[in-house]
């Protein structure tokens, strides 16, 4: 009400840039961590499954990267945004501003870091010797669909946690379940009976991971119907959450002050 839209966007952009700057200045290796963390995760999975459990398959490292890296993006953004409104207490109690500012700040901050990770992932695939084709360009749509999904789920969990602080423990468990249920280190086609495969793909994260692999490993177009459905579902949830926040904006300031 007291800040115009243009002003709000300006504040958002400045805060985003400064948050990234601040995050970087906290560690010795600063920017390197954005890449090092996913690289370490992928390495651990690779060592466990390819070497210790001998579950290797051709291009297993690419297989793992297509699963783990998008999954990390999703799980980090959702867990980080779950606490975002409560940690924005200092501002929410002093300035009249839309509450979704805080989860969206987390989402954009993570998306920025993720874009660099993706860039290095593509370069790695090329150096590794994957066959590059025009189909790879369609990955932009897969990434964008995931971005919409991340926005939608982040808004949802950020709205719940201030009312139910215990919810954040549930998110940690849900993310673990999601990791096992999204086919990061196994292929659902080999593991599941055909009648369960469709059910498995109803999990949007699993479906997106399937599409990342389809584009990079099979050089095939992504499943457009699935992408459209996930996008529309996400946009619907974003719209519902926007309306919800518009109606309850001033409730949150009082809620987290108590």
């Amino acid at each position, binding site marked *: 009400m*007291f800040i115009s839209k243009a*002003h709000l966007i300006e504040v958002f952009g400045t805060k985003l840039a400064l948050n990234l700057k601040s995050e970087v200045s906290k560690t010795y290796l600063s920017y390197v961590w954005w890449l090092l963390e996913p690289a370490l995760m992928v390495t651990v999975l690779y060592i466990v499954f390819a070497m210790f459990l001998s579950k290797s398959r051709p291009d297993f490292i690419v297989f793992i990267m297509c699963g783990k890296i998008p999954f990390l993006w999703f799980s980090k953004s959702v867990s980080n945004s779950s606490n975002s409104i409560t940690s924005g207490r200092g501002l929410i109690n002093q300035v*009249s501003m839309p509450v979704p500012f805080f989860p969206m700040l987390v989402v954009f901050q993570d998306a920025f870091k993720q874009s660099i990770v993706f860039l290095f992932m593509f370069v790695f695939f090329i150096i590794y010797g994957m066959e590059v084709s025009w189909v790879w360009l369609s990955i932009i749509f897969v990434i964008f669909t995931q971005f919409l999904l991340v926005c939608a789920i982040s808004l949802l969990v950020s709205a719940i946690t201030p009312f139910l602080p215990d919810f954040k423990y549930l998110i940690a468990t849900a993310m673990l379940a999601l990791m096992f249920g999204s086919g990061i280190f196994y292929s659902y086609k080999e593991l599941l009976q055909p009648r369960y495969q469709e059910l498995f793909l109803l999990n949007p994260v699993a479906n997106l991971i399937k599409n990342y692999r389809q584009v990079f490993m099979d050089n095939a177009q992504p499943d457009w119907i699935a992408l459209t459905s996930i996008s529309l579902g996400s946009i619907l949830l974003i719209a519902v959450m926007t309306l919800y926040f518009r109606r309850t904006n*001033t409730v949150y300031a009082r809620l987290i002050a108590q």
Partner: protein
Amino acid sequence: MNTAANIMELDHVSVRYKSRRSFFRHTYFTALDEVSFSIIKGETLGIVGTNGCGKSTLLRVLANIYGIDAGQVNWYCRQVSLLTLALGFDPELSGRDNAILSGMLLGARKADVLDKIDEIIEFSELKDFIYKPIKTYSTGMRARLGFSVAVTMQSELLLIDEVMSVGDGKFKRKAEAAMVNKISSDQTVVLVSHSLPQLSKVCDRVLWLNEGKVIMIGAVDEVLQEYECFLEKR
């Protein structure tokens, strides 16, 4: 009942907090109880009251930060700023970055803050420290920076909660003078303070709040006299 001179009107506004005692049991606490008054454009309205009487809640209602449970608030202005020192400060960032962000959060556009940044830095007397992360600042330095940003910002309606002055010695006097100067201008101000001499110096009207209710609103001397009697009796 809006007259052109009013910048804001409160009509029987109530706010009550709910606090959880156990899983299903809640207790309620009424912070504001049917508060009605209006703020006239250009005036400086002081608010007095003992601790916990609802002053801070009232300022947050005026700034549209807290929603209300009953009554109505009408705004006839576009911008209201609650003046907060060190708003949104991030210890990892430099004093300059923090000043820019803080100014923007207080309601200024980025270009306006950048225009005033030299003025802010000079007022704060931080010199080269302004480029160092504020985690290296002393409490006094941080307060000086926060105050310098706040005193430079403008808003149609300025809400000030106990931030008349900071620092020590020379800076304290400078800060007080700058704030008094700001308040005495055409700026509409709502000022919460425990310092009665300060209030009588700068206010046009005073509102006395007790246990969430408006006890009195009117001429400065009249209200402050009654309030002083009340304080002595307690």
